[in-house]
């Protein structure tokens, strides 16, 4: 088993670098002296994240302020990231929105915006990154999806759809480039205490972003294809997926 483990990545591209889960992943890497290329929308927040990683020991940090919905500028940004980092060892996609489910049920523009941010912008980034990694025959493409993508529920099915579509897209990319030595990791977090879930009552199922970050790094080291974080969610989702539709459609989830 030990031979299958890989070293922690040291040249790291993070898309959505102000995400709390992404920070849980980035901090231990910074402690080990990683180099970062960080992309986020807010310059103030990006600066706070960069100082944090620098203080923890990051050897170099490059930042780029960008709204990732703007797919037209992806290529130039990614090329710059590859150049600044020399080689990308890990690309972590962490941007995303929960969106307003109730509004999306009646307003297509709202639904489209959720799909654009969570799915279409990811397709654009992954397309470039998959080709880049395939050409360099190495690297990890880690994408934060969600357990919500495993089954549609009335409380968040538009968000769930964007993540479910992302999961299928990643299955295909993995199938295509696995033989070139590239690791494609689909991350499916359950409830995590982040700004995205701050409005929900925090039950015992909520995990801290630092703990979730450690589970993700473990999944990277072990070259897992799909990682439920924390792992208990693999069991929970197995149960949820196996409920027959005849019963599921009557449930209040």
């Amino acid at each position, binding site marked *: 088993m030990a031979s299958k483990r890989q070293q922690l990545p040291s040249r790291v591209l993070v898309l959505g670098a102000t995400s*709390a889960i992404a920070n849980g992943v980035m901090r231990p890497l910074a402690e080990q002296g990683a180099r970062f290329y960080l992309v986020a929308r807010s310059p*103030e*927040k990006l600066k*706070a*994240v960069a*100082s*944090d990683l620098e*203080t*923890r020991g990051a050897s170099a940090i490059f930042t780029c302020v960008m709204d990732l919905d703007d797919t037209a500028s992806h290529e130039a940004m990614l090329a710059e990231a590859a150049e600044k980092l020399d080689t990308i060892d890990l690309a972590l996609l962490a941007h995303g929105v929960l969106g307003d489910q109730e509004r999306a049920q009646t307003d297509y523009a709202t639904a489209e915006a959720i799909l654009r941010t969570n799915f279409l912008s990811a397709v654009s980034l992954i397309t470039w990154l998959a080709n880049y990694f395939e050409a360099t025959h190495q690297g990890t493409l880690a994408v934060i999806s969600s357990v919500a993508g495993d089954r549609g529920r009335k409380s968040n099915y538009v968000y769930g759809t964007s993540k479910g579509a992302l999961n299928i897209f990643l299955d295909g990319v993995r199938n295509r480039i696995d033989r070139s030595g590239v690791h494609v990791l689909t991350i499916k977090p359950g409830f995590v205490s982040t*700004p995205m879930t*701050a*409005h929900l*009552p925090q039950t015992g199922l909520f995990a801290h972003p630092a703990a979730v970050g450690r589970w993700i790094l473990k999944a990277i080291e072990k070259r897992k294809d799909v990682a439920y974080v924390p792992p208990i969610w693999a069991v929970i989702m197995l149960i949820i997926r196996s409920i027959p539709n005849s019963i599921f459609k009557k449930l*209040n989830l």
Partner: protein
Amino acid sequence: MPRNSQPKFQSPKFESWGRYPKLEADLVPLSWTTDFPLTQPPATKILPVGAGRSYGDVCLLGHGTLLQARGLDRFQHFDPQTGILRCEAGVTLAEILDFAVPRGFFLPVTPGTKYVTVGGAIANDIHGKNHHIAGTFGCHVLRFELVRSDGARFECSPSENSDWFSATVGGMGLTGLIAWAEIRLRPIVSRRIQYKGTKFVGIDEFVAISKANTHSEYTVAWMDSVATGNNFARGIFMQGDHNPQPEPLTRSKEPWLTLPLDLPEFALNHLSIGLFNTLYYNKQFSKEKTALVDYEPFFYPLDSILHWNRMYGKSGLLQFQCVLPWEENQQFGIINMMKAITASGLASFLTVIKVFGDAPSPGMLSFPMPGITLALDFPIRAELSFDLVDRLARITQEHGGRMYPAKDARMTADRFQSFYPQWQEFARYVDPAFDSAFWQRVTARG
């Protein structure tokens, strides 16, 4: 159950580490220092809360809005030459230790738990086992940024906006939100502590040993609150110094033990606490014992069990901590308190006694002053525990001492105002949008 009955977002009840009282409030999490002041100010009063590890109601506000500042958890800068660390206020002391120990630095002052935030440590101007040498936490804070509810932001230090500095250190979170702070860490070369435990019987012997050992960086004593007769006020005086022999500096491991359930109320009673105290006292066989121990069990014996407060059952515990100034010849105040406890039939599970030094605290309302401090905790058994704590408060007042707001849920307004006559001056610095359950009680408006 009717469908779509979703009272999902009703205000939950919040409790501090002592689990008493439990008060309803709204929660607004802060993740960035720029999140405050809030764009939509709440209709209620607000109070910042860190890790919620204080015991009583200084971090609670009934029918108010709690600003959860734990999300402000970023480091901003560290200078390995000077040991000066700047970080956001929601960073915990545990996170600082994980960061600093492998780099050869340690906290300048630490309480008995590492799970408190920097903001909370400043707001309560906490103290530790090295108070006789290092003073309070606030003595090592170089500067911080205070954000008021009207949007005003200013940097405070002992020389810049010094009145705000003095009001905010020990100001119980009432003067505004602490966004970030700069503190000076102390260098170490080893994780381990040279420990020495000395048994004593009686307050006089404790005072004599304390005075003879002020050269030790850390001193504190554990006392048996149940023993009577010849064993009255027996205990173990513990002292420690950072090991001067260089050793590899590693990070701490995650705690793996957690108390998953509330123990039933009868689990802690006079008998079980008496038994625990006797076992603890006799664990050390000889009068003196020395050892080289890791800093974790030395400073944080209870942190290795997450949620140890569940040991006290759902109704929680009452903490009581006071400091009494020195008295001629004998420490009657402490003796009277110990007698009041044994007479009450209640027992304190963990009784801690320490001599405070004379380093002045920078805070207007800081708790420590030269003398002896006694910390006790009692499982809440309705009126019995409340009566006992009221008696202890009266003894504190009679002996010219004062009580510690961070460990209080019962102090009367009269007592608070006599313990802290400077409270009226402090009140001028309270943010008009801020309030706390403690502050309402001790200023007797609510």
